[in-house]
């Protein structure tokens, strides 16, 4: 059928594969560390960078990544350990960043830019520029390499920072490096399915995986697999929806991906309580 021979679909499937595989492991650590808010905030904050990059005529992905890393550094430098206060700091950085988005949009005078912002916020994997694919692939590999490097110390630090510190793990450094990996992962997913919805792909598959297995190594693999599956299903459904009412333009792929993410998660909720962990 036309699906398999369509070039935009090929690109979309590749992007979905890369993003799903990256968000799985990063998402597992995000959920374990209770940093879902930071993970979400970085997608909105990245949008600011994207809007700024657009103003400067630079590739939007660079803007995302640069601004995210900057914000992640600010959040880490504020140096708060208690989760509630950390969330407040995240909130302040997010609020300031959203304000900057308002300013950048204000400076962009043409009406097409609000449309561009909409695309950045809600994204469309089908309009993803194929020329950006090598860059996304490179960044994906870099992120996975970083996670692989950090794996053991990060796991230790995420489960118990005191024990990790006692065993010589540089907890703050590891936490900062994790935030960089998170920034990259969120930038990649925001570019493909949109900033607002990248959170679903970061948190959903990971939360699903952690309900199905207690072992982090298995969770990472399951999360990646679920992430790729829901993204590919979303792409397929969106393609199929081209003939659907109300106006035969197709329903947005982000909607389908989120629907699939939630379906997977709710299915995992059916897992009996003794096997599932309350902590996710």
């Amino acid at each position, binding site marked *: 059928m036309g699906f398999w021979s369509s070039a935009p679909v090929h690109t979309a499937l590749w992007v979905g594969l890369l993003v799903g595989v990256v968000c799985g492991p990063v998402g597992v650590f995000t959920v374990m560390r*209770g940093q879902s808010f930071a993970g979400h905030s970085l997608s909105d904050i990245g949008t600011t960078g994207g809007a700024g990059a657009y103003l400067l005529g630079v590739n939007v992905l660079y803007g995302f990544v640069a601004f995210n890393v900057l914000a992640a550094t600010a959040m880490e430098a504020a140096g708060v350990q208690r989760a509630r206060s950390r969330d407040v700091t995240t909130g302040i950085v997010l*609020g300031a960043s959203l304000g900057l*988005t308002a300013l950048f949009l204000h400076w962009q005078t043409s009406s097409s830019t609000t449309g561009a912002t909409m695309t950045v916020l809600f994204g469309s994997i089908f309009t993803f520029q194929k020329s950006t694919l090598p860059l996304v692939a490179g960044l994906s590999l870099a992120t996975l390499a970083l996670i692989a490097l950090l794996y053991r110390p990060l796991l230790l630090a995420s489960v118990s920072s005191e024990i990790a510190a006692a065993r010589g793990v540089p907890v703050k450094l590891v936490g900062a490096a994790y935030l960089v990996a998170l920034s990259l992962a969120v930038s990649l997913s925001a570019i493909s399915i949109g900033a607002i919805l990248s959170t679903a792909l970061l948190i959903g598959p990971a939360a699903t995986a952690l309900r199905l297995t207690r072992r982090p190594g298995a969770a990472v693999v399951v999360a990646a697999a679920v992430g790729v599956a829901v993204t590919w299903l979303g792409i397929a459904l969106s393609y199929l929806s081209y003939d659907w009412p109300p106006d035969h333009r197709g329903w947005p792929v982000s909607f389908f991906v989120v629907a699939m993410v939630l379906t997977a998660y709710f299915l995992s909720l059916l897992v009996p309580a003794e096997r599932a962990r309350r902590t996710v």
Partner: protein
Amino acid sequence: MFSALMANTWLAATLVAVVAGVVGFFTVMRGSSFAAHALPNGAFAGAAGATLIGTSTLLGLGTFSVAGALAIAALGRRARNDVATALVMAAMLGLGALFLSVGHSYAPEVDALLFGQILAVSNGQVEACVVMGALTVLAVVAMYRPLLFSSVSPDVAEARGVRAAVVETLFLLVVALVTTMAVPVVGALLIFALLVGPAASARAFTSRPEAAVALSVLIALIVVWASVAVAYETNLPVGFLVGALVAVAYVAGRLYTWSRGGNG
């Protein structure tokens, strides 16, 4: 800027600031910053849906923020709070994406819902603000003791009969009410800066709840009034000014704490 034309703006801004200052205190104390961001985002999706089926925006905002509050509270009993919040928000925004796409939403309308249009507030919106603001403050006053108790010592409160799950649900509904009231005025993306910033700053200066609430309201008022005034004079977006001033207030609070040798 003090002409009759701006009266609605000043009134709405003041009402939003007061309510955000009050509810914000509990938001920060309970660590509900994520929910304070998620509910307005979800409400935005509701407004998009309302536009699609041709009904009142306020109804759409209200429905989705209440549904979101209930969903987060319910899911939060089976999953971690932050995961529940993220997933409920994702669900609402996914629907929002669908509504916007299918409804061919007009970009300036979307812009207004995201960033607010505080410089162009209608009489109807002011009336809505007064009613909802009053309801919110009444709710907080009615819930004050159990809410404070449950927020400060959830386990002790639970033992004394204050059920944490009930308080959480009611509190999120209050945030939903604030959301519905404030989104048309200051926009979905920035109501949460007003909920989180002034309160966070206030708590750095005092630990007594009543004083902190009062200070939170004061800071929120200063931030909003200054933002409206500067926006009026310079044409800079109100959202940018609010975000910046809230950050300044927060940093001031952190510096104060640091200078006194604490490590908040």
